[in-house]
């Protein structure tokens, strides 16, 4: 069973930023990476991925440049910027706080 990535609003942006911390990736690479890292649970749709990437570009959190792939095709690679890194850590800490809070509620109930 796969879960649509727009389950929790805002999480997709965070996931994309996170996958980019290791190396610059193209859109397909990002989708693939999220899928494999989540062990096939999260399946990012093209329809959400590309608008999200445009959003991140507009905010200046990622940078895009055209590069050759291993198969010698042209692809647009996205790189995390410094402000993107800051944004990621901000979102991560917020997310952790939320998880903890949700956890408490669930335990208590």
């Amino acid at each position, binding site marked *: 069973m796969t879960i649509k990535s727009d389950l929790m609003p805002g999480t997709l942006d965070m996931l994309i930023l996170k996958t980019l911390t290791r190396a610059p990736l193209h859109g397909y690479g990002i989708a693939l990476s999220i899928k494999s890292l989540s062990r096939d649970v999260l399946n990012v749709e*093209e329809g959400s991925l590309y608008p999200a990437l445009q959003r991140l570009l*507009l905010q200046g959190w990622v940078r895009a440049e055209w590069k050759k792939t291993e198969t010698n095709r042209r692809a647009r690679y996205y790189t995390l910027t410094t402000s993107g890194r800051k944004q990621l850590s901000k979102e991560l800490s917020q997310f952790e706080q939320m998880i903890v809070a949700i956890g408490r509620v669930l335990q208590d109930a």
Partner: protein
Amino acid sequence: MNSVLRFLNKLRILSRRERFDRELQEEMSYHREQKVQELQDQGLTAEAARYATSREFGNDTSLKEQSRDVVGFWFESTLQDFRFSLRQLRKNLVFTCTAIVVLALGMCASISIFAFVDAALIKPLPYQNPSRLVGVYETVALFPHSNLSLPDYLDWKKTNKSFTALEVYQHHGVMLNGPSGAEPGKSARVSDGFFRVLGVLPILGRDFYVGEDLLSAPRTVLLSYTAWQQRYGGRADVLGQSVILDGNAHIIIGVLPRQFHFVPAEPAEFWMTIHASSECDLRRSCHSFNGVARLRDGISIASALSEMESVAQHLQQQYPDSNSGQGASVIPLTEAIAGDIRPIFLLLLCGAGLLLVIATVNVASLLLVRSESRRREIAVRGALGASPARLIRQFVTEGLVLVAAGAILGLASAYWTMQLLTRLIPADLIDRMAFLHNVGLSPRVWAFAGAISLLASLLFTLTPALRLFSPEMREGLAEGSRGSAGNTWRRLGSKLVVLELATAVILLVVAGLLGKSLYRLLRVDIGLQPDHLAVLQVAAPNATYSKDEQAIALERLVVSKVASLPGVKAVGISSDLPVNGWGDTTWFRVLGRPWHGEHNEVPERDISADYFAAIGAKLLRGRSFNESEEKSKPHVAIINQAFEKEYFPNEDPMGQQLSYLTSPPVPIEIVGIVQDIKEGQLDTKNLPTLYVPFNQSPNNYFNIAVRTSQTEQALVPALAAAIHQIDPGIAGFGGAAMTDVIGDSPSAYIHRSSAWLVGGFAVTALLLGVVGLYGVVAYSVSQRNREIGVRMALGAQRSSVYRLILTEAGWLVGIGITIGLICSVAAATLMRGLLFSVRSWDLPTLTGVAAILAVSALLASYVPARRAASVDPVEALRME
């Protein structure tokens, strides 16, 4: 900071939109190919892998659209919609032009009429704090707002506690020394504080001082702006100059503002103070002034009225001879200025509003037809990824574009129409309705135009949008867009057509009733023969003609001089002309009957011996006056039929004696009875009227009525010239043919203009309604082409096809006419005050309108019915 960056980024992308699209396309197809590859690696065939990928990703266009939305500005898609709308509208120019013209028509009518209503009824009067200003009058049995006498006014002014100021004014004809002798001037006499109570300051010079209206004060005058410009060339040195008015030198002390108007006292070029000296000014029973007052803070009109009533009551007790039956009346000044015109303006506004309703409904149904024919397009666009919201936005944009174009065209033509309408109004009527100078595109008119545009936009966007969301619309692609969908549309479209037809009926009925009123009004028996009758007013200066014998000598001279003009058959003299007003009244009693001081008030006319013969009035009994009946002879009078009916219902009036309220009474013997002459406006009822010999009540102002065998218009200049030949100091003015006097009289003018305007609305409404019906029937026929083909293939006769279509149209027309007739009787009942001797349920009008509408509707449906009947069954069936 962040938002600035985002804005700059958006701007950067906007400037390279094409590159953005290309890159996005490339990026996404790369993604897709990789995915296909991935699936192929898992063992799917190339075809299956591509199919699966496509399925997973969904609509490519809509995906790109989403990304574009992220980086685009909000107005970009709006701009896109706008451009698309223009393209769509250009593609169907006939539809677009029809819709815009129809819309502009409705808007033009309602905006221009609203501008008149605004100027007349809504716009505050151009005085300081106008809502606190009131008109103050006396009241008598005959007239609810009658004039004040000067002594009464002075008492009212002294005793009242309701007003901070109570002033009076009087319209006053004045004699000027013109280049070719005496000429009449337009002036007003006012009390000293008149301009202060209105809060109007002269633009040049000064206002009247307190006490400047007393006889002892030097005579001064304020000029109207127009008089200053026209008579004095707008020169500043006009102050201190002297002008001779009525033979007295007046010093010009100031000039009034250009925009200043005070309709009840106008037209007036010279504003002078009262300087009470005439017999009438000093007599408590001579009523010739109107009051205007400013309410004290916290005093309501009702409490002011009750105070003035008690003041009037007190005067009745104090001066029973002159004041018995004289009450008080206090009304808002707006009522005094525009009260008469309000119902007619509201009627016109309603008429224009109904026309606007028809116009918008007409365009709405056109839009519906179009949305219907665009079902397939919409379905395709939906399938290609356009979201419902985006599709609706498209319709909204198209509606807005139509409304905007219609509104601009409507406003422009309304502006032009206002100019035209104000130019069509006779000048002297404009003088009496000065607010018409202000008709124009005021902020309120703009707001009104905005409001109706908004309503129209709402209607236009809602109708197709609602249709878009109906379930069968979604099936538009699959189905051949026929059958059930056509039926639903027909139902909605039919309702709209019924609405249009019913509205058209209302307008037609109202126009018919007004037209019939006008017809009746112009044919009302006025008791005289107006054709070949010319009239002229004559005013001779007081200095040389104020004595009785002087006035009589002048009258005789004028009559003999005019009688010698070529073509003249008879010359008559009267103190007032017919079809003018019931004013100039007198009090009398019947001698030999008990009398307790009550005031029997009737209009009195002082006429020459030949007057009735000259105007063609019919003497029913008795005799006319003799030229020799002067004051020294026994006093005589002729009464009209109304007089006989009211005061001698069971007696023979001939030989009876009347008297004015003098003591001792002076008997006036009734020597004749004349058929009722319409002395007042055409739409008024005849009042008991008393005619006495001019020579027993002479005056240096009188009117001549001349019967000629030639055209009366040609006689008018000769009449004025003849008067000046007698004495250049005498003014002869207001010369006209009697038929024109009647035709241009306020009652005739108002009836005529409202009948024409509403008639114009009604014809337009009929046209639009019939076109709307044609549209519905034609559409219905086009939708049922196949059905008709099948019917005919199965042996249906052409006549039964005709019957099929005409029955459908007949139902719509029948329902429309029925609803319309019911509503119009209700509407006519509301406006019965504007009708003249026509009942609101006037059967001939109602049946006539129903017939006109039925016939035009039949014609409108006959054309599509013919097309239906000429359907070739083979062709219709092959169309599948």
